[in-house]
């Protein structure tokens, strides 16, 4: 058996040499392919909202209820969570596990602040008479922002699981790709919000 084959057998860590014929790690390529498909998923939801956003009774469309300064702060929080996420990746690549856990927790916390803000916004809208079944405008708004919130929530769980693995010393420098892939997902959720904030909140419906 050659040295290369022996090294492969001896590595024992699943995916350590998980390169496809492209020369790129299969997991990373797979994540990018997933994110490309998510562009189409969110594209469908944003288009549906664009089509139906003016179809609501007078004074009860989502645009009449938006609180732009409040949503701007939420957007800022999510943008900053992308910074803490990329700092977490830089930390594990340096082998600084304490900073890795600190930045991952900061990212998860900022994500929770964003989700808390979204829950508050949904509550205010519901109290003012706009809900999922109120009108097609309301339905398309809640489905779009709700699905984005669900993605953020999945990301928070993912980040917290990485903190858990790190605490149990199961996230060595050699597995920094695990953090990079979680980061790709988190940054994607951020760029989707960049589009939603502009198209849904800032661009006027009429």
């Amino acid at each position, binding site marked *: 058996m050659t040295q290369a084959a022996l090294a492969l057998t001896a590595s024992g860590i699943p995916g350590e040499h998980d390169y496809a014929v492209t020369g790129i790690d299969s997991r990373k390529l797979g994540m990018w392919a997933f994110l490309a498909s998510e562009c189409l998923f969110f594209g469908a939801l944003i*288009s549906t909202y*664009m089509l139906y956003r003016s179809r609501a009774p007078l004074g009860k469309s989502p645009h009449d209820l938006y609180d732009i300064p409040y949503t701007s702060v939420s957007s*800022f929080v999510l943008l900053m969570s992308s910074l803490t996420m990329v700092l977490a990746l830089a930390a594990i690549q340096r082998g600084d596990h304490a900073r890795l856990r600190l930045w991952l927790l900061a990212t998860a916390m900022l994500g929770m602040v964003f989700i808390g803000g979204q829950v508050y916004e949904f509550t205010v809208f519901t109290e003012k008479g706009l809900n999922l079944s109120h009108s097609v405008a309301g339905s398309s708004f809640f489905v779009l922002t709700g699905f984005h919130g669900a993605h953020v929530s999945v990301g928070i769980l993912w980040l917290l699981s990485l903190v858990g693995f790190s605490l149990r010393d199961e996230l060595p420098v050699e597995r920094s790709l695990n953090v990079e892939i979680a980061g790709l997902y988190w940054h994607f959720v951020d760029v989707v919000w960049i589009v939603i904030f502009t198209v849904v909140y800032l661009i006027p419906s009429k």
Partner: protein
Amino acid sequence: MDDTTTAIAVPSEPTDDALSPAAHAHPDPAQYVRVAVALAAITAVEVTVYYLNLPAKLLVGVLVGLASIKFALVAAYFMHLKFDAHLLRRVFLTGIILACLVYPVALFTLKVLFH
């Protein structure tokens, strides 16, 4: 194990062809902070522009332009598309371009049908 078996068993390492010239030379934390400051500043400009009562078409143009810059900054620096393999950029751009082509056509068609 003969040479043929080895060739099948050992996956290929990343090739130069798949990587950009600066592949894996990710920015340092200071550069990430600078990008984040730029993102925050652009968001502040977006909100300011929203309150300026610009003509609708100009407002849409400016807001879409600013959002595109933010999108590109996050994708290029935080997601490392500027530094990683070209193939990853192509895969992601395929999704974005498909979404940008398919849904405007669908919206236009539905608008024509409804009116």
